[in-house]
Protein backbone atom coordinates (compact mmCIF):
# COMPACT_ATOMS: atom_id res chain seq x y z
CA UNK A 1 0.00 0.00 0.00
CA UNK A 2 1.26 3.44 -0.95
CA UNK A 3 1.06 6.05 1.77
CA UNK A 4 1.89 9.71 1.65
CA UNK A 5 1.73 12.19 4.47
CA UNK A 6 2.26 15.91 4.97
CA UNK A 7 2.83 17.91 8.13
CA UNK A 8 2.31 21.66 7.98
CA UNK A 9 3.04 24.31 10.56
CA UNK A 10 1.73 27.86 10.60
CA UNK A 11 4.37 30.13 12.09
CA UNK A 12 4.73 33.85 12.75
CA UNK A 13 6.86 35.73 10.19
CA UNK A 14 8.90 38.24 12.21
CA UNK A 15 10.12 39.96 9.03
CA UNK A 16 6.68 40.66 7.55
CA UNK A 17 5.94 44.23 6.58
CA UNK A 18 9.48 45.58 6.33
CA UNK A 19 12.76 44.82 4.62
CA UNK A 20 15.22 43.16 7.01
CA UNK A 21 18.68 42.51 5.56
CA UNK A 22 19.87 39.81 7.96
CA UNK A 23 17.28 37.07 8.20
CA UNK A 24 19.69 34.16 8.71
CA UNK A 25 19.26 33.78 12.50
CA UNK A 26 15.74 32.53 11.92
CA UNK A 27 17.04 29.59 9.93
CA UNK A 28 18.69 28.06 12.97
CA UNK A 29 15.68 28.93 15.12
CA UNK A 30 13.53 26.72 12.88
CA UNK A 31 15.65 23.60 13.38
CA UNK A 32 13.72 22.19 16.38
CA UNK A 33 10.42 22.68 14.53
CA UNK A 34 11.82 20.84 11.52
CA UNK A 35 12.87 17.86 13.62
CA UNK A 36 9.53 17.76 15.41
CA UNK A 37 7.64 17.81 12.09
CA UNK A 38 9.85 15.13 10.55
CA UNK A 39 9.32 12.87 13.57
CA UNK A 40 5.58 13.46 13.39
CA UNK A 41 5.60 12.41 9.74
CA UNK A 42 7.39 9.16 10.49
CA UNK A 43 4.79 8.44 13.19
CA UNK A 44 1.97 9.16 10.72
CA UNK A 45 3.48 6.67 8.29
CA UNK A 46 3.65 3.86 10.84
CA UNK A 47 6.61 4.74 13.05
CA UNK A 48 9.45 3.06 11.17
CA UNK A 49 11.87 5.52 9.50
CA UNK A 50 13.00 2.71 7.20
CA UNK A 51 9.54 2.63 5.61
CA UNK A 52 10.01 6.14 4.21
CA UNK A 53 11.23 6.25 0.59
CA UNK A 54 10.39 9.71 -0.73
CA UNK A 55 10.42 13.27 0.60
CA UNK A 56 9.95 16.94 -0.23
CA UNK A 57 9.43 20.34 1.38
CA UNK A 58 7.84 23.72 0.75
CA UNK A 59 6.78 27.07 2.13
CA UNK A 60 3.96 29.55 1.58
CA UNK A 61 4.71 33.08 2.77
CA UNK A 62 1.81 35.31 3.82
CA UNK A 63 0.94 38.51 1.96
CA UNK A 64 3.08 40.87 4.07
CA UNK A 65 6.20 38.75 3.60
CA UNK A 66 8.85 38.30 0.98
CA UNK A 67 9.54 35.26 -1.21
CA UNK A 68 13.00 35.09 0.37
CA UNK A 69 11.46 34.40 3.79
CA UNK A 70 10.27 31.07 2.40
CA UNK A 71 13.88 30.22 1.62
CA UNK A 72 14.58 30.14 5.37
CA UNK A 73 12.99 26.71 5.39
CA UNK A 74 15.66 25.15 3.15
CA UNK A 75 18.19 24.14 5.73
CA UNK A 76 15.91 23.31 8.69
CA UNK A 77 13.31 21.49 6.57
CA UNK A 78 15.82 19.45 4.62
CA UNK A 79 18.35 18.58 7.24
CA UNK A 80 15.75 17.61 9.83
CA UNK A 81 14.25 15.00 7.51
CA UNK A 82 17.64 13.67 6.46
CA UNK A 83 18.61 13.33 10.10
CA UNK A 84 15.37 11.68 11.27
CA UNK A 85 15.54 9.23 8.35
CA UNK A 86 19.08 8.15 9.22
CA UNK A 87 21.33 10.26 7.02
CA UNK A 88 19.31 10.23 3.80
CA UNK A 89 21.56 11.11 0.87
CA UNK A 90 19.50 12.97 -1.73
CA UNK A 91 18.80 16.67 -1.94
CA UNK A 92 15.27 17.51 -0.77
CA UNK A 93 13.38 19.11 -3.63
CA UNK A 94 11.14 22.07 -2.87
CA UNK A 95 8.75 24.80 -3.94
CA UNK A 96 7.84 28.15 -2.43
CA UNK A 97 5.49 31.05 -3.07
CA UNK A 98 3.89 34.11 -1.54
CA UNK A 99 0.16 33.53 -1.26
CA UNK A 100 -3.12 34.40 0.43
CA UNK A 101 -5.04 32.59 3.15
CA UNK A 102 -5.95 29.18 1.72
CA UNK A 103 -3.18 29.15 -0.89
CA UNK A 104 -2.23 25.70 -2.17
CA UNK A 105 1.31 24.50 -2.84
CA UNK A 106 2.55 21.55 -4.90
CA UNK A 107 5.41 19.99 -2.95
CA UNK A 108 7.74 17.97 -5.20
CA UNK A 109 8.89 14.54 -4.01
CA UNK A 110 11.99 12.48 -4.85
CA UNK A 111 13.67 9.33 -3.52
CA UNK A 112 15.50 9.93 -0.22
CA UNK A 113 18.80 8.34 -1.24
CA UNK A 114 19.04 8.79 -5.01
CA UNK A 115 17.39 11.73 -6.78
CA UNK A 116 17.24 9.96 -10.13
CA UNK A 117 15.02 7.04 -9.06
CA UNK A 118 12.29 7.58 -11.62
CA UNK A 119 9.48 5.68 -9.91
CA UNK A 120 9.63 8.08 -6.94
CA UNK A 121 9.36 11.42 -8.76
CA UNK A 122 6.08 12.70 -7.43
CA UNK A 123 4.33 15.65 -5.78
CA UNK A 124 1.67 16.35 -3.18
CA UNK A 125 -0.61 19.36 -3.00
CA UNK A 126 -0.94 20.91 0.45
CA UNK A 127 -2.57 23.95 2.02
CA UNK A 128 -4.53 25.19 5.01
CA UNK A 129 -7.89 26.92 4.67
CA UNK A 130 -7.13 29.72 7.17
CA UNK A 131 -3.41 30.26 6.57
CA UNK A 132 -1.07 31.95 5.92
CA UNK A 133 -2.38 35.24 7.26
CA UNK A 134 -0.38 38.35 6.29
CA UNK A 135 2.24 37.96 9.02
CA UNK A 136 2.47 34.16 8.88
CA UNK A 137 4.22 31.45 6.92
CA UNK A 138 3.11 27.90 6.26
CA UNK A 139 6.04 25.48 6.24
CA UNK A 140 5.52 21.97 4.94
CA UNK A 141 7.25 18.59 4.94
CA UNK A 142 6.08 15.59 2.93
CA UNK A 143 7.06 11.91 3.00
CA UNK A 144 5.93 8.82 1.06
CA UNK A 145 6.41 5.10 1.59
CA UNK A 146 7.00 4.01 -1.98
CA UNK A 147 6.86 4.58 -5.72
CA UNK A 148 3.98 6.12 -7.66
CA UNK A 149 1.03 3.81 -8.07
CA UNK A 150 1.49 1.64 -11.18
CA UNK A 151 4.86 3.25 -11.89
CA UNK A 152 5.95 2.22 -15.38
CA UNK A 153 7.95 5.05 -16.91
CA UNK A 154 11.25 3.12 -16.78
CA UNK A 155 14.52 4.65 -15.62
CA UNK A 156 16.64 3.99 -12.55
CA UNK A 157 14.96 1.61 -10.09
CA UNK A 158 15.15 1.88 -6.32
CA UNK A 159 16.66 -1.61 -6.27
CA UNK A 160 19.56 -0.46 -8.44
CA UNK A 161 20.83 2.53 -6.51
CA UNK A 162 24.29 2.81 -5.02
CA UNK A 163 23.21 5.57 -2.63
CA UNK A 164 26.58 7.25 -2.39
CA UNK A 165 26.34 10.55 -4.24
CA UNK A 166 22.63 11.19 -3.59
CA UNK A 167 21.90 10.98 -7.30
CA UNK A 168 22.07 7.30 -8.38
Amino acid at each position, binding site marked *: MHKRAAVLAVIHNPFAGKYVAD*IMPMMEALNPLGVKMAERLVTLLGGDPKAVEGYGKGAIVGAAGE*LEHGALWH*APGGYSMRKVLGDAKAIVSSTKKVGPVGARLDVPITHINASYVRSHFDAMEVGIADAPRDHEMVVALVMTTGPRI*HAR*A*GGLKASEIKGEDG*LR
Partner: protein
Amino acid sequence: MKAEIRKIVVAVEETRSEMGKRVNPPTRKAVAAAVIKNPFAGRYAEDLEELMAIGEELGGLLGERAVAALGVAPGRIESYGKAAIVGEKGEWEHAAALLHPRLGKPLRAAVEKGAALVPSAKKMGGLGTAIDVPLGHKDAAFVRSHFDAIEIRIPDAPRADEIVVAVAVTDSGRPLPRVGGLQKHEIKGEDGLR
Protein backbone atom coordinates in the same frame (compact mmCIF):
# COMPACT_ATOMS: atom_id res chain seq x y z
CA MET B 1 4.24 16.28 -34.71
CA LYS B 2 3.17 13.55 -32.34
CA ALA B 3 1.41 15.71 -29.77
CA GLU B 4 -2.10 16.93 -30.48
CA ILE B 5 -1.80 20.42 -29.03
CA ARG B 6 -4.92 22.51 -28.35
CA LYS B 7 -3.14 25.56 -27.03
CA ILE B 8 0.15 26.93 -25.80
CA VAL B 9 0.42 29.45 -22.98
CA VAL B 10 3.60 31.39 -22.23
CA ALA B 11 4.03 33.72 -19.26
CA VAL B 12 6.91 35.84 -17.99
CA GLU B 13 7.21 37.04 -14.41
CA GLU B 14 9.57 39.99 -13.93
CA THR B 15 10.20 41.20 -10.36
CA ARG B 16 11.38 44.80 -10.13
CA SER B 17 10.90 45.43 -6.46
CA GLU B 18 10.41 43.36 -3.33
CA MET B 19 9.43 44.73 0.09
CA GLY B 20 9.97 48.26 -1.20
CA LYS B 21 13.52 47.54 -2.30
CA ARG B 22 14.58 47.67 -5.94
CA VAL B 23 15.61 44.43 -7.59
CA ASN B 24 18.28 45.41 -10.11
CA PRO B 25 18.50 43.81 -12.56
CA PRO B 26 14.96 42.43 -12.24
CA THR B 27 14.66 38.68 -11.73
CA ARG B 28 12.80 36.92 -14.51
CA LYS B 29 11.06 33.58 -14.80
CA ALA B 30 9.27 32.21 -17.86
CA VAL B 31 6.90 29.28 -18.09
CA ALA B 32 5.63 27.69 -21.29
CA ALA B 33 2.77 25.18 -21.17
CA ALA B 34 1.02 23.06 -23.77
CA VAL B 35 -2.47 21.60 -23.48
CA ILE B 36 -2.37 18.24 -25.20
CA LYS B 37 -4.78 15.42 -25.87
CA ASN B 38 -4.18 12.40 -23.65
CA PRO B 39 -4.04 9.37 -25.97
CA PHE B 40 -4.73 7.05 -23.03
CA ALA B 41 -7.67 8.88 -21.44
CA GLY B 42 -10.32 6.51 -20.13
CA ARG B 43 -8.34 3.28 -20.44
CA TYR B 44 -5.44 1.49 -18.82
CA ALA B 45 -2.46 1.08 -21.14
CA GLU B 46 0.57 -0.84 -19.96
CA ASP B 47 2.93 0.66 -22.52
CA LEU B 48 3.12 4.44 -22.34
CA GLU B 49 5.61 4.88 -25.20
CA GLU B 50 3.33 7.31 -27.05
CA LEU B 51 3.44 9.75 -24.12
CA MET B 52 7.19 9.36 -23.77
CA ALA B 53 7.60 10.38 -27.42
CA ILE B 54 5.30 13.36 -26.88
CA GLY B 55 7.39 14.33 -23.86
CA GLU B 56 10.51 14.41 -26.00
CA GLU B 57 8.81 16.65 -28.53
CA LEU B 58 7.48 19.02 -25.85
CA GLY B 59 10.83 19.28 -24.06
CA GLY B 60 12.26 20.98 -27.13
CA LEU B 61 9.18 22.98 -28.09
CA LEU B 62 8.38 24.33 -24.64
CA GLY B 63 12.03 24.79 -23.69
CA GLU B 64 12.62 26.93 -26.78
CA ARG B 65 9.41 28.91 -26.23
CA ALA B 66 10.29 29.67 -22.63
CA VAL B 67 13.85 30.73 -23.47
CA ALA B 68 12.55 32.88 -26.34
CA ALA B 69 10.09 34.57 -23.97
CA LEU B 70 13.03 35.79 -21.89
CA GLY B 71 14.80 36.94 -25.05
CA VAL B 72 18.23 35.77 -23.92
CA ALA B 73 20.82 33.39 -25.34
CA PRO B 74 20.31 29.78 -24.17
CA GLY B 75 23.57 29.91 -22.22
CA ARG B 76 22.13 32.70 -20.03
CA ILE B 77 19.45 30.45 -18.57
CA GLU B 78 20.24 29.75 -14.91
CA SER B 79 17.51 27.46 -13.59
CA TYR B 80 14.74 25.19 -14.82
CA GLY B 81 11.85 22.93 -13.89
CA LYS B 82 8.94 20.93 -15.33
CA ALA B 83 5.43 19.83 -14.36
CA ALA B 84 2.22 18.22 -15.63
CA ILE B 85 -1.47 18.21 -14.72
CA VAL B 86 -3.45 15.18 -15.91
CA GLY B 87 -7.17 15.59 -16.66
CA GLU B 88 -9.61 13.40 -14.77
CA LYS B 89 -9.91 10.59 -17.33
CA GLY B 90 -6.17 10.04 -17.22
CA GLU B 91 -3.81 8.41 -14.80
CA TRP B 92 -1.18 9.90 -12.48
CA GLU B 93 1.45 7.83 -14.28
CA HIS B 94 0.72 9.58 -17.57
CA ALA B 95 2.41 12.68 -16.15
CA ALA B 96 5.46 10.58 -15.29
CA ALA B 97 5.67 9.15 -18.82
CA LEU B 98 5.63 12.66 -20.29
CA LEU B 99 8.08 14.24 -17.88
CA HIS B 100 10.73 11.75 -16.92
CA PRO B 101 12.01 9.47 -19.69
CA ARG B 102 12.74 11.91 -22.53
CA LEU B 103 11.66 15.49 -21.90
CA GLY B 104 14.94 16.44 -20.21
CA LYS B 105 17.39 15.93 -23.06
CA PRO B 106 15.84 18.37 -25.58
CA LEU B 107 15.16 20.81 -22.72
CA ARG B 108 18.86 20.74 -21.80
CA ALA B 109 19.71 21.37 -25.45
CA ALA B 110 17.41 24.41 -25.38
CA VAL B 111 19.18 25.89 -22.34
CA GLU B 112 22.73 24.65 -23.12
CA LYS B 113 24.26 22.20 -20.68
CA GLY B 114 22.06 21.34 -17.70
CA ALA B 115 24.15 19.03 -15.55
CA ALA B 116 21.56 19.05 -12.75
CA LEU B 117 18.34 17.15 -12.30
CA VAL B 118 15.29 18.99 -13.67
CA PRO B 119 13.02 19.32 -10.63
CA SER B 120 9.39 18.38 -11.24
CA ALA B 121 5.85 18.23 -9.92
CA LYS B 122 2.75 16.41 -11.08
CA LYS B 123 -0.91 16.17 -10.15
CA MET B 124 -4.37 15.39 -11.45
CA GLY B 125 -7.00 18.08 -11.72
CA GLY B 126 -9.89 19.72 -13.51
CA LEU B 127 -10.24 22.93 -15.49
CA GLY B 128 -8.21 25.77 -14.04
CA THR B 129 -6.07 23.63 -11.76
CA ALA B 130 -2.90 25.47 -10.81
CA ILE B 131 0.49 23.80 -10.46
CA ASP B 132 3.74 25.01 -8.93
CA VAL B 133 6.63 24.23 -11.25
CA PRO B 134 9.70 23.77 -9.04
CA LEU B 135 12.90 25.53 -10.11
CA GLY B 136 16.51 24.59 -9.43
CA HIS B 137 19.87 25.73 -10.82
CA LYS B 138 20.48 23.95 -14.13
CA ASP B 139 24.09 22.95 -13.45
CA ALA B 140 24.32 22.61 -9.67
CA ALA B 141 21.24 21.56 -7.71
CA PHE B 142 22.55 22.90 -4.39
CA VAL B 143 22.74 26.57 -5.41
CA ARG B 144 20.50 27.93 -2.68
CA SER B 145 19.60 31.26 -4.29
CA HIS B 146 17.90 29.44 -7.16
CA PHE B 147 15.53 27.15 -5.24
CA ASP B 148 12.18 28.55 -6.31
CA ALA B 149 8.94 27.80 -8.17
CA ILE B 150 6.49 29.42 -10.56
CA GLU B 151 2.76 28.80 -10.56
CA ILE B 152 0.84 28.32 -13.78
CA ARG B 153 -2.88 27.98 -14.26
CA ILE B 154 -4.86 27.73 -17.50
CA PRO B 155 -8.54 28.51 -16.88
CA ASP B 156 -9.92 26.12 -19.52
CA ALA B 157 -7.53 23.21 -19.10
CA PRO B 158 -7.02 20.37 -18.58
CA ARG B 159 -10.29 18.93 -19.85
CA ALA B 160 -10.94 15.33 -18.83
CA ASP B 161 -9.05 13.88 -21.79
CA GLU B 162 -6.21 16.40 -21.75
CA ILE B 163 -2.88 16.98 -20.02
CA VAL B 164 -1.15 20.30 -19.29
CA VAL B 165 2.62 20.04 -19.66
CA ALA B 166 4.77 22.94 -18.44
CA VAL B 167 8.44 23.90 -18.65
CA ALA B 168 9.89 26.83 -16.70
CA VAL B 169 13.23 28.64 -17.00
CA THR B 170 14.85 31.71 -15.41
CA ASP B 171 17.79 33.97 -16.11
CA SER B 172 18.22 34.71 -12.41
CA GLY B 173 17.64 33.39 -8.91
CA ARG B 174 15.15 34.70 -6.36
CA PRO B 175 14.92 38.45 -5.82
CA LEU B 176 17.21 39.67 -3.00
CA PRO B 177 18.58 36.22 -2.04
CA ARG B 178 20.22 36.21 1.41
CA VAL B 179 19.92 32.84 3.08
CA GLY B 180 23.48 31.73 2.38
CA GLY B 181 24.44 28.31 1.06
CA LEU B 182 26.23 27.54 -2.19
CA GLN B 183 26.54 30.60 -4.46
CA LYS B 184 26.29 30.41 -8.24
CA HIS B 185 29.82 31.76 -8.78
CA GLU B 186 31.24 28.94 -6.63
CA ILE B 187 29.91 26.02 -8.65
CA LYS B 188 31.88 23.52 -10.68
CA GLY B 189 28.81 22.35 -12.60
CA GLU B 190 30.12 18.87 -13.30
CA ASP B 191 28.30 16.44 -11.05
CA GLY B 192 24.99 18.33 -11.17
CA LEU B 193 25.06 18.99 -7.44
CA ARG B 194 27.74 21.60 -6.67
